[in-house]
């Protein structure tokens, strides 16, 4: 069994945004030369999530809007204080909580060099504290 690990960079343009990354992940997996196994797509951030869902722009808007409604910004969060680790006030507890609800990775089967995804399934990076440039890891385990 082999392990291949690659990094990807994705740029968001809104504060809450679902970004389709299926194509980039497929290209990255192909570049490893691996044919069969599993692919793990992992975000390197605590205010982003990774999810799989239907590639419909209106649904993307719905998910973004629901996350904002579910975890409101104007609450009394304990995280919101001077945060020495960053050298600034922490003001984004809601982004972290939204990210926790989505999770930091997805795993997809790889068969004969192709990601096994349903016809409606698309991989998304969900930026919950954008716009920013974000880093992802694509790790292929197999042969």
């Amino acid at each position, binding site marked *: 069994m082999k392990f291949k690990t690659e990094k990807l960079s994705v740029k968001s343009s809104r*504060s809450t945004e679902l970004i389709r990354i299926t194509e980039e992940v497929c290209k990255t997996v192909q570049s490893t030369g691996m044919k069969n196994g599993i692919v793990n797509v992992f975000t390197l951030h605590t205010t982003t999530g990774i999810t799989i869902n239907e590639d419909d722009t209106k649904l993307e808007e719905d998910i973004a809007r629901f996350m904002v409604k579910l975890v409101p910004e104007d609450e009394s969060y304990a995280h*919101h204080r001077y945060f020495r680790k960053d050298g*600034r*006030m922490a*003001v984004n507890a809601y982004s972290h909580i939204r990210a926790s609800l989505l999770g930091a990775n997805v795993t997809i089967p790889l068969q004969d060099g192709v990601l096994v995804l349903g016809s409606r399934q698309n991989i998304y990076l969900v930026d919950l*504290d954008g*716009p920013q440039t974000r880093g992802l890891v694509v790790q292929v385990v197999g042969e």
Partner: protein
Amino acid sequence: MAIDIHVHAVLVKELTDNRPDLLRDARELFDLRTSPQPLSTLLGEMDECGIERCVLLPINCERALGSKMPSNGEISELVSRGERRLVGFSSVDPSMGKDALTDLRQSHDALGLKGLKLNPALQNFDPGGVEALEIYREAEKLEMPILVHTGLTFSNKFSIKFNHPLIYDDIARKHSKLKICLAHMGWPWVLDAVSVTVRNPNVYLDTAGTFAGTPTETLRQITSIVSTRVIENTLGDRLIFGSDYPRIEMNKMFNAVSSLPLRRDVLDAIMRDNAIAFLGEC
């Protein structure tokens, strides 16, 4: 559309990739430890909020701390990459005497920088001292507005007494054509900053900073000290939108300021018109 007059150019990837010492200094000296982002992230934040221009600020701490964060030349370089949406300010160290005056003239004449950024408690100089007065005189002559840090600074390397907004009452009265912006509304000395602003028509305040929590929480606290009526009727032409990016994301500060319960014309002035009055032709 809006203008953001308070953006720190310390964690811009195009600069830190070429200068690892800038990244180290931003973390160790400026106490800012978030990850560098490319210039396109800043422009993207501006797009998201409808911010047409922003002012890039350096801080020259070479004598006090051994660092320019960043240099005036680097600010000028970023401005040239900024699709005409970035306005560059200069920073000099008044304690350097004649060299500081030369730096200021050069940054204006050769680099095209439009204003001057000072942070006395980080640069460790007396803003009421003789050398600083020479700088104010030259800035007034060059028609370069000054944006000066007032109020709290998290770094405790030097005395915070140099950040008190009342210092600028004498300076504003002495240099009546010099435009001075008291950054962060002097927080927590907000009423002192307001009093200097009210009695001096050449003094402005900016909204930058999140010392009391989130942008919304901070503004809520400020408007509990300075009523919205006072802001509308007395400070409406002198309060300027500034974010303090990257200490806070521009969109978060933009959303908080533009949601203040103020008259539409006053909000428009805060978000844009007052910046134009402060900056002049930029």
